[in-house]
């Protein structure tokens, strides 16, 4: 499909399916806005937060962590060999945040009041910090993206203004997500005595921001491979491989701090008490932290595409698993009752993630996001490192 000379969007059967999911979700969302949360969700006084907050918001934001870790590596440390992935990471992150905002909007009961926290400051609330940082950061990302947008839609003066703003935007674009990735963890500090002690800790903000950060490279690897496959390009294997060094070191630190924290709080033995929580915790730590650490540190695995990819998928799944454990497993005992999302909650979630895929495809097909491929760049003399010639 083409609209105008400059815009295109290819329609495939898979994309039609995704569009159908989005439409169903939109209808369900409309119904929810008119008839309230009780009508479409299984949420209850025991389980005030469910799939939309636990998965779409917490995981959506965590998965978007690729944006700020890549920004730090590329734009602050100027490791230029990673430039080819910078824009793709920014894009995924931006879409992830939009999903998070949409799910938050769906989830709040009095949605017409969503603007209140901008004017009425409950600054003693962690949620206040989360709300402000996420809103500001989404704005920052839109502006950063504007820089790319105006490469295509020519508008010199605007591009110039944005260009001048770029440095403060980039810095804000790292500081804000660092703050709220950690605050998403701090949200659960209030659950002292209720969140299972294997997860509750005063260090939970550190664990959240740290894991969001090391998740970044893994997410870039997974999504880079997916994009490469979808568009029949060469995966940027060199980049993936050297990114593992970042992930590896950070995960080892994560593991050590985790153990020290458990020992310090005297709950280390709880990990082995055989309860449901302890088993989930062990799975989280062994399958999703220790195994990827081992895979990343073995040369013959790390240098193969399947190896990096498997390890990275484990890391991504592991962070999701961790967030789910905090929101659901760790709270289940204290909250009582039970919760399983309704079909509508699932459909809306599926619709949102389908929208993410569609948006990603549309943007990379119309904007300069992915690096030019060798065969297209007829000696345009671009000066970036060897990394790209993968």
């Amino acid at each position, binding site marked *: 499909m083409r609209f105008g000379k400059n815009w295109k969007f290819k329609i495939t059967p898979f994309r039609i399916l995704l569009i159908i999911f989005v439409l169903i979700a939109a209808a369900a969302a409309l119904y929810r806005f008119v008839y309230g949360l009780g009508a479409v969700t299984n949420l209850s*006084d025991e389980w005030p937060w469910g799939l939309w907050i636990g998965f779409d918001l917490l995981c959506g934001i965590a998965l978007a962590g690729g944006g700020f870790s890549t920004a730090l590596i590329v734009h602050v440390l100027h490791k230029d060999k990673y430039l080819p992935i910078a824009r793709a990471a920014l894009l995924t992150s931006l879409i992830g945040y939009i999903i998070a905002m949409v799910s938050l909007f769906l989830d709040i009961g009095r949605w017409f009041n969503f603007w209140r926290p901008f004017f009425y400051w*409950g600054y003693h609330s962690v949620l206040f910090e989360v709300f402000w940082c996420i809103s500001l950061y989404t704005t920052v990302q839109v502006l950063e993206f504007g820089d790319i947008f105006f490469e295509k839609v020519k508008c010199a003066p605007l591009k110039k203004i944005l260009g001048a703003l770029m440095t403060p935007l980039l810095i804000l674009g790292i500081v804000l997500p660092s703050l709220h990735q950690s605050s998403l963890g701090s949200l659960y500090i209030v659950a002292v*005595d209720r969140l299972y002690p294997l997860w509750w800790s005063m260090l939970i903000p550190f664990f959240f921001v740290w894991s969001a950060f090391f998740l970044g490279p893994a997410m870039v690897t997974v999504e880079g491979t997916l994009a490469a496959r979808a568009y029949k390009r060469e995966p940027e294997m060199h980049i993936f491989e050297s990114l593992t060094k970042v992930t590896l070191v950070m995960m080892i630190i994560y593991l050590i701090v985790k153990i020290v924290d458990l020992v310090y709080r005297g709950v280390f033995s709880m990990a082995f008490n055989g309860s449901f929580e302890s088993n989930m915790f062990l799975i989280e730590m062994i399958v999703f932290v220790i195994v990827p650490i081992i895979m990343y540190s073995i040369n013959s695995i790390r240098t193969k595409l399947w190896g990096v990819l498997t390890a990275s998928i484990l890391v991504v799944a592991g962070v999701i698993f961790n967030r789910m454990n905090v929101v659901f497993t760790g709270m289940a005992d204290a909250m009582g009752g039970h919760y399983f999302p309704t079909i509508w909650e699932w459909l809306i979630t599926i619709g949102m993630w389908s929208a993410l895929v569609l948006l990603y495809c549309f943007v990379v097909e119309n904007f300069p996001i992915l690096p030019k491929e060798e065969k297209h760049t007829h000696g345009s003399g671009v000066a970036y490192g060897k990394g790209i010639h993968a």
Partner: protein
Amino acid sequence: MSKGVLVDITRCIACRSCMVSCKSWNDLPSNPSTFSNNWDSPGKIDSTNWTVVTNHIIEEGDQLKWRFVKRQCMHCLEPACESACFTHAFVKTKEGAVIYKPTEVDQDYCVGCRYCMIACPFGVPSFEWDKTFPFVQKCRFCYDRMKEEGMEPACVTSCPTQALKYGEREELLAEARARIDQNPSYVKHIYGEKEYGGTSWIYISDVPFDKLGFRTNVSEKSIPAYTWDVLKWTPLIFFGWGAILTAMRAYTKRRAEVHNEEDMYAPVDDE
């Protein structure tokens, strides 16, 4: 001068007068009851039952004790619900009630995010799930009675056994201590004196509190104090981390080559 209520569990007979008077004073709808094994249906607080009496059967040796506990918002001295609310919709009034901001203009602060429900350590705030634009509902300590007419809460008035006593929290604490000291059958603990920084409603009992569905051995530090321990670092991290990043960016930039990013990327051509 902060008010409180002393609940003496040994005196409660589960007549549920408090539940009835709470409903009638606050115009709450009645709900059809269902059967529950220990006869305490509905058995938990919700948006139209701001107070409930729960029943507990306790075996002590060959003795069987049946105890009844009136539950409602504890009106914490440093309420977690207030600190968790990002629009500051809940406040602790100087009289001691924890309520939505009482003035007419300020009433509609709530966004319905339900973080207060996650934050409350007693599982009190309840949501009007079936409404399109739900509010969070809970016991208001009959703030309207307390404030305008100097009356005690509706539930306290209707209690026929004086299991509930309304007054200054300090005086009630002294009285609770006196009752515990005079009668050895009481457990030597006043629930709510220190729990989570203390609550306006306090309980004394002759069976251990953990057998009555109270969460015991909990933190004596208030939940807002925990959060503040973390939140207070925010400005420092914001400026400190920002400064470090700016410095690093400036430092590494000098060494980096300059790229023309426009030449580097291109839309995917998939046709």
